[in-house]
């Protein structure tokens, strides 16, 4: 394919700036002392320190997984800063007290936090490096009984809830990265929706990594009580550095009877340059527990950034008739590598899951779908439908699909469909022969390919996601 399609994918990364701000850091390296120091800095209760230490000790016994279709140099865990916070960061009562440089940073990211400018129907928790700097609409939400705050605050203000649910979906020793996260996580969001409440607005957390040598280990916990409903969105960006940064998050969702949680992600971490220098290593564990009958958890993700993506948001369908969904668009370009998919574990009767995965690979990138569908012996009447489509742009990109299907109940029904297509020169020529520019032709084809997933995103973000993909692909075709 000629040069013009290539230039189309290679749009410069808009969010690559660094905020110049004084920070307090715990020096590089990880040992028990560092874990204790993080807990002390955050003035945590005893149970949290115990949780962290247990995780740290577990982590020491574990080995980094190597089964994913990813190739990256060994990570030196002693060369990472595990805690970095803007100086004098006490959580402010009002935004007026927040460092203007931080407000400006979020404004530049299209996320104004100040009262006058902020989005009207979306509450935002803004996390900068290791700490949450502001949560909007907190008081308004509380009037409905909805708790939306940073996890650090939740540890202090709602210790019973945190103690009950933290680690209940992703146990401390679940995997190497989740153990690491449990030991050193610094911040993240906490959401609690009480019984019978439909959350009155979209909730969202925006993660920003700023410091070069800092890892981000955020932890999110969402609890939806019986008959409640919430839609939550996370976004993320990072500056352009020529070194790699580690991001190892854990997200846990708990849905009780008839509860409905929709969790959407638009991931736009810095992906490294066209030669694969720099970029975020994104190792994330996300899991939802459909604990109650008729509960539902839906994951929608648009993954466009990161040098390396290792991520399998899943659902454990325990409650009878519960529903798990996974809608994913993963785009890789240049030297990016993504190994992503989902795990749907059917435990209860008549549980249903749907998996729609769309992988787009351009440049020399590699994009793998890895999905597990497991139907337990008691999951009478369980059903799964999976569809995994790959699209290749150019001749040097790779796509793989690794479906794992384990069925222990003979009455279950599992369907899997897969396809691979290519944006070919002749298709582009056809559209151009009808007067459509190459940029528009590519974005029409990409939007069409991703339609089933974008339809799942909250309205405002669906448009954003569509634009984001077009931007990312600028230069990839031609």
């Amino acid at each position, binding site marked *: 394919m*000629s040069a013009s399609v290539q230039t189309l994918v290679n749009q410069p990364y808009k969010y690559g700036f660094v905020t110049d701000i004084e920070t307090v850091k715990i020096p590089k390296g990880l040992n028990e002392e560092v874990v204790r120091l993080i807990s002390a800095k955050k003035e945590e209760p005893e149970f949290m320190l115990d949780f962290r230490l247990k995780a740290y000790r577990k982590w020491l016994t574990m080995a980094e997984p190597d089964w994913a279709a990813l190739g990256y140099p060994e990570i030196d865990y002693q060369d990472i800063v595990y805690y970095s916070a803007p100086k004098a960061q006490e959580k402010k009562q009002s935004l007026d007290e927040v460092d203007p440089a931080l407000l400006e940073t979020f404004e530049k990211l299209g996320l104004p936090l100040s009262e006058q400018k902020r989005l009207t129907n979306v509450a935002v928790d803004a996390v900068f490096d290791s700490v949450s700097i502001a949560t909007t609409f907190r008081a308004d939400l509380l009037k409905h009984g909805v708790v939306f705050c940073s996890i650090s605050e939740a540890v202090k203000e709602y210790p019973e809830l945190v103690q009950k649910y933290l680690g209940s979906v992703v146990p401390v020793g679940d995997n190497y990265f989740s153990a690491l996260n449990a030991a050193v996580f610094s911040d993240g969001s906490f959401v609690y929706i009480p019984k019978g409440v439909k959350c009155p607005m979209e909730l969202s957390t925006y993660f920003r990594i700023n410091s070069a040598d800092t890892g981000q280990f955020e932890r999110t916990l969402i609890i939806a009580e019986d008959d409640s409903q919430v839609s939550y969105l996370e976004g993320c960006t990072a500056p352009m550095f020529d070194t790699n940064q580690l991001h190892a998050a854990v997200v846990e969702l708990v849905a009780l009877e008839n509860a409905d949680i929709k969790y959407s992600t638009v991931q736009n971490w810095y992906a490294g340059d066209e030669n694969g220098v720099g970029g975020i290593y994104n190792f994330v564990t996300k899991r939802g527990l459909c604990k109650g009958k008729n509960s539902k958890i839906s994951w929608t993700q648009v993954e466009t950034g990161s040098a390396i993506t290792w991520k399998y948001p899943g659902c454990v369908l325990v409650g009878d008739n519960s529903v798990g969904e996974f809608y994913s668009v993963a785009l890789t370009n240049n030297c990016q590598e993504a190994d992503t998919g989902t795990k749907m574990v059917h435990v209860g009767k008549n549980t249903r899951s749907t998996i729609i995965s769309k992988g787009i690979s351009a440049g020399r990138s590699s994009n793998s779908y890895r999905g597990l569908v497991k139907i337990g012996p008691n999951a009478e009447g369980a059903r799964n439908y999976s569809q995994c489509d790959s699209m290749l742009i150019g001749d040097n990109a790779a796509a793989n699909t690794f479906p794992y299907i384990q069925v222990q109940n003979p009455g279950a029904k599992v369907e899997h469909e897969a396809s691979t*297509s290519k944006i*070919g*020169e*002749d*298709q582009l*020529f*056809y*559209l*151009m*022969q*009808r*007067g*459509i*520019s*190459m940029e*528009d032709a590519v974005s*029409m*084809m990409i*939007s*069409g*390919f991703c*339609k089933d997933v974008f339809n799942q995103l909250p309205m405002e973000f669906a448009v954003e996601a569509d634009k984001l993909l077009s931007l990312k692909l600028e230069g990839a075709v031609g």
Partner: protein
Amino acid sequence: MGSSEVILSVKGLTASINGTPILKGVDLEVKAGEIHAIMGRNGSGKSTLSKVLAGHPAYEVTGGEVLFHGEDLLELEPEERARKGVFLAFQYPLEIPGVSNLDFLRASYNARRKEQGLEEVDAFDFDDVVEEKLDVVKMDAAFLNRSVNEGFSGGEKKRNEILQMALLEPSLGILDETDSGLDIDALRTVSEGVNQVANENNAMVLITHYQRLLDYIKPGFVHVMYDGRIIKTGGKELALELEEKGYDWIDEKLAAGVA
């Protein structure tokens, strides 16, 4: 007729693909109101000529000139040529999964209108525009909501091409074997569609193997393409002669040096 405007003027056009010369000096002049037919053996370069005129990036033009309404066509990007009124009905129309036919038609229609300095048409008004054109090719509206050409039969794809031509009202329509693979009813429908679009202000170039298309669409000029050149031009009777005597007849004439 002699004084009508020259739409397309091709002189000494040579082009190659991957370094292999395919077009070896094509001369062709097409005026407003004219219908031309280009015939010739498989592999003689007919599709290549149509794609080079439309600006396919895989072909390299190595010599000659092409003027479209007096303007250097070869300087323009494929989408610019299209917007200015060059339309190619593809021999093998492509399938574009996930892109609705209706959205595609509207994007294309608006791109052409914008070029003509006309206002773009919104989705609502476009429904009426397209409705009317569906009749031209007797196409069912259900096709509009499907992905572009995806799962269309051969004949449906060709109808969709003519629907697009009817919408875009090109100045020059190049139809590459639009008749191939059509049953007799479809052939009649498609031909009638072309006849509805053709008028004294535009021109049509039909690439075909078969005389039968020319029963429906009457060309004023018939050209024979041979090894990358147009080696013979005549009236309608040339098509009949070719049908009767086959292309070997051309070979013999060439051998005798009289073609």
